[in-house]
């Protein structure tokens, strides 16, 4: 390997899908060669940054790049949205992590992507298609404005259903509506793959359970190293504990304890809010002098416009924070 990554990993393309979702294409030929559907990377933005797991949404072996699709959820992902430009670098992009999808000899498969989950489920759709399976794609969004990769996804599907919560596009309703339709129409579905927010994956698993359809979900617990070294990503699968980063991230949806996962995702709620507020404040102070929001695209209009939808009850727990060094 050459030393091209000494200074970090270069962003070679960026695309914004909406106010909150954007795509980064990263130069990493070895990763492009190694990546398989179902795997993820851990990125670090800068030397004060945290380790952020992101699914490999696409890889291009010829260009030598991997593609990440990111939802600006909190401090780190918003900072990425604001500072990542073509030509800038991420401090670290490590992977591909996790066990790749086992395509098996599935003949008919339903692939469900909820919201941002469309991106991670895409490489699977393509792989199943290339493997000769009959692919039924179901994607769901809150509303029409958030839809992305519809055509790209559709191109790998034999059948395609799109749902929206408000009915502004496709079927009005959740992806479970689409799943029910697909099950009604096809009696011979071998497997369903669902990727999205835990609550959606849980609902998908409950929809298929009575029909006994094998259901694969991709879990997104809070991670640190991604190499099986910390156990922070542990999830309850059946009676056992698994480390999602090395044993997963894909698991049997009928065995996953989603309530446990959702509880553990709340681990740092209070700290995350604090980090976000501090960062927003810092940005506000910097904004007037050194940034030109118009030139930098929607992201640079900054955090003010994109205040997170804070669930009031969520943050009122008492918490303590580590004291800074030297105190």
């Amino acid at each position: 390997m050459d030393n091209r990554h000494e200074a970090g990993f270069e962003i070679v393309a960026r695309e914004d899908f909406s106010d909150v979702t954007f795509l980064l294409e990263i130069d990493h030929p070895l990763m492009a060669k190694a990546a398989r559907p179902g795997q993820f990377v851990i990125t670090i933005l800068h030397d004060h940054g945290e380790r952020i797991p992101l699914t490999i949404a696409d890889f291009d072996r010829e260009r030598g790049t991997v593609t990440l699709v990111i939802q600006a959820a909190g401090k780190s992902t918003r900072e990425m949205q604001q500072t990542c430009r073509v030509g800038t670098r991420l401090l670290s992009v490590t992977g591909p992590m996790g066990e790749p999808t086992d395509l098996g000899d599935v003949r008919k498969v339903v692939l469900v992507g909820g919201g941002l989950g469309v991106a991670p489920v895409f490489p699977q759709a393509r792989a199943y298609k290339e493997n000769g399976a009959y692919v039924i794609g179901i994607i769901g969004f809150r509303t029409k404005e958030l839809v992305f990769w519809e055509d790209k996804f559709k191109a790998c599907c034999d059948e395609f259903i799109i749902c929206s919560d408000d009915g502004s596009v496709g079927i009005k309703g959740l992806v479970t509506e689409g799943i029910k339709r697909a099950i009604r129409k096809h009696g011979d579905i071998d497997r369903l793959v669902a990727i999205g927010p835990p609550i959606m994956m849980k609902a998908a698993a409950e929809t298929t359970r009575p029909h006994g359809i094998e259901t694969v979900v991709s879990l997104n617990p809070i991670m640190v190293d991604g190499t099986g070294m910390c156990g922070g990503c542990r999830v309850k699968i059946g009676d056992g504990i698994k480390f999602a980063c090395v044993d997963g991230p894909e698991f049997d949806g009928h065995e996953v304890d989603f309530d446990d996962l959702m509880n553990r995702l709340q681990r740092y709620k209070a700290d995350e809010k604090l980090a976000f507020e501090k960062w927003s404040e810092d940005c506000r102070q910097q904004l007037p002098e050194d940034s030109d929001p118009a030139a930098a695209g929607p992201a640079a209009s900054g955090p003010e416009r994109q205040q997170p939808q804070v669930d009031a009850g969520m943050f009122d727990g008492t918490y303590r924070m580590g004291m800074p060094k030297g105190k």
Partner: protein
Amino acid sequence: MAKKTIRTIPQDRTLMPVQDPAERARNFAEVALGYELDAALNESERCLLCPEANCVPACPVAIDIPGFIEKISKRDFRGAYDVVADANLLPAICGRVCPQEDQCEGVCPVGDTLEPVAIGRLERWIGDMAIAEGWANLPYTEPNGFKVGVVGSGPAGMACAADMAKAGCDVTIYEALHRPGGVLRYGIPDFRLPNEVIDAEYANLTRLGVKIECSTLVGRLFTIEQMIDEMGYDAVFIGTGAGSPQFMGIPGENLIGVLSANEFLTRCNLMHAGEFPNYDTPLHLGGRVAIIGAGNTAMDAMRVALRLGADKVHCVYRRTRAESPARVEEIDHAEEEGIEFHWLTAPVEILDDGEGNARGMRCLAMELGEPDASGRPRPVPIEGSEFEFEADTIIYAIGTNANPILGQTSDLKLNEWGYIEADDTLATSMAGVFAGGDIVTGAATVILAMGAGRKAARSMKAYLGIRDSETVYRPAQSGSDGKIFGIDAEERNFTRIRAA
């Protein structure tokens, strides 16, 4: 000079200055401050320079201990460093973290009547001096054209890389994390092993020409097989450590506030969670912290928790202090800093506050019974002794398992616990691939990992046909026609044929 005897040497072990416990329990500066010149000279006088010194074979890398101590006493400090560095590449690190009481110092005859010679402190002193003076033993090397890959940048990998680079090989270390050092970096905290010391030892590796590629997860980005078959490596060393934390399997382990010591220490040491929100990684430490276990990892976790502002830190261990596997100095330091120890106590359940957070543990009192497989007395629960133990952060430090990634991604033979199988020469089941350190032995020590790295380097040299004189045995030098038994010796693969 008259021969020294136990009566003529300075009777008291020279004290090493330490930071005041109350002060240091709130900062991350190094606890043990190291010797000054006078102290080191005085301590060096305490060595009897035994002709057949017990301490040398008790050292896992057989440092010529009386040899270097004698040089200190004669004020030949560079000479002392050279003696140490012959055997130990990382004296400033090992002097700080080795369990000397179980090794060299444990068998020193001075210890029969007095306190043993403070070998570790002297080693540290000479290591620190080397860093301060910029000494490094960089041999003149002739590149020999061999490419060696090292997986994992912990002490095992560092040691193997250094030896192979000194033999003239082109060496690259691959590390999964974004900074090198292994446990030295992410596990052992700054107040025990400052980052600058690790950086200095790494700088020496770079001066030897070793390349270090971080953010590279071997097995996933490329496999061991690919390193040999496609990437042109003539030999590979695996030193990926033991890494995967164990839990107990008791109810409540997934509650918020329960985490492994590895996670806790990684967040703090590698990711600077203690400086959140200036650094992005959160920690969310509670006020009442309980650490389960009493090894080095547990001691480190307790003392970090204290420094991050926990009100009270408790150690919960099912055996007694005598069975604790930690370095004695660390237990002493932890006690002085105000950690409360609960020996013979075993948690059986972690209690929920009703909102998904841990609020404490249900524990049993234990007593010691018959020795178990490890030779230590087995802790046996005392019936009816159940009680509740309040804690809002509960940290597991009860040991580790083998990291599964290389097993998942290569055909390397593993043993029944998932560690890599290696023979006496540290060769694995795959030709040209060697392994050592925690990934072979299970969690052990820095010095054993380093020793394994060096041993593997010796085997690797034999395998590659690099003689001990550290030159490659080439036809041009032997005056032959370039063929050995009809095989072209320049043909690299020739050297890959290994006797079964």
